[in-house]
């Protein structure tokens, strides 16, 4: 992976050329969930539906596990993977809580209190373990 100036931002994956190449089929699978009949087919047989797409096994497993950060790491883009969340009946805020490792109540409280502070999360250099 080539180093980019934004790679030092913690907890953040920019959907750049590298990620887009990696995640093309994963994201196009997500795009297919825009159609009601495809959502039904996916819900009826998730594994079978995923096998229609030339995704890697790791990508398929991340979807089956609803590993939202894993999908992003494997090239997923949040505007695409959120279509899986919509299929599951989850809100953006619910998956945002899951990705940041807190309960939905904790996340909602954080947002009401003004959101996550940028202090300490601008750069990995600011963090104790790099």
């Amino acid at each position, binding site marked *: 992976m080539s180093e980019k*100036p*934004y790679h030092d*931002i*913690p*907890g*953040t*994956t*920019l*959907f*750049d050329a590298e990620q*887009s190449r990696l995640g*093309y089929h994963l*994201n*196009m699978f*997500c*795009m297919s*969930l*825009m159609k009601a009949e495809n*959502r039904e087919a996916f819900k009826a047989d998730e594994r079978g539906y995923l096998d229609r797409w030339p995704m890697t096994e790791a990508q398929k497993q991340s979807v089956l596990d609803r590993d939202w*950060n894993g999908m*992003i790491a494997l090239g997923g*883009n*949040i*505007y*695409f993977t*959120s*279509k899986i969340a*919509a*299929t599951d009946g989850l*809100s*953006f*805020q619910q998956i*945002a*809580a899951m*990705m*940041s*490792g807190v309960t939905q109540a904790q*996340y909602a409280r*954080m*947002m*009401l209190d*003004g*959101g*996550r*502070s*940028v202090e300490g*999360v*601008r*750069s990995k250099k600011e963090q104790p373990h790099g």
Partner: protein
Amino acid sequence: MARITAGVATSHVPAIGAALDSGKAGEPYWQPVFAGYERSKQWIAEEKPDVIILVYNDHASAFSLEMIPTFAIGCADSFAPADEGWGPRPVPTVKGHSSLAWHMAEQLILDEFDMTIVNKLDVDHGLTVPLSLMFGQPDEWPCQVIPLAVNVVQYPPPTGHRCYMLGKAIRRAVESYPEDLKVVVFGTGGMSHQLQGPRAGLINTAFDQAFLDTLISDPVAQSKVPHLDYVREAGSEGIELVMWLIMRGALDDQVKQVHRFYHVPASNTAVGHLILENAGS
């Protein structure tokens, strides 16, 4: 001739549309958000634009990864609300202004902005939420709308400077259109927010307020801010703010602030809103 009289900037958070559509606008969580737009509804009812050029981004609704236009202009007569996975928003079909949109496309291309021309375009919350915030829930939208979609999903989006210069080119294109039309430009998206990864939920009020100040008073300086600053300070999705520079570029160097509003949170996002009029108008 057609002329641009004012600019509007606003966040386009999907949950705002959902709150309005499901009758929750009066709830304590949402009431402060909608209260910030009361003045705006009065203003636009008096302003009565003929056409809105609405700068927004599509969120994997009309454009997937098959085609990713950096700048696209909707030239059709109408645009249907997109089904974003839970059915289209119950809002009116958006009426375009095909003649002005095509004129703009021609002029912008000759002015060295290589627009993608789009004749079929379903419009998602990025376009319809700003209309709802400004007009409420009418049976039909009171003016015509030209969608101008900017890629901010696939990194990198166009630079702030390129967006600012596109705004200036849009003004030249509009002012060379012979019909007497009143045009308002909307820049939408932002403010600080991050929707993905362990840093989700990021809000940076200091950055947002400084952005609002500088966008108004020194847009050239704001246009030079690199992407890295937006991503680091305002979150991976906060970079949508470059779209506000298109609106700003379409206005005079000096503008009059009619309205300014800022609120945290709407779901995952800081809501920012400006109404700016050309100082000469």
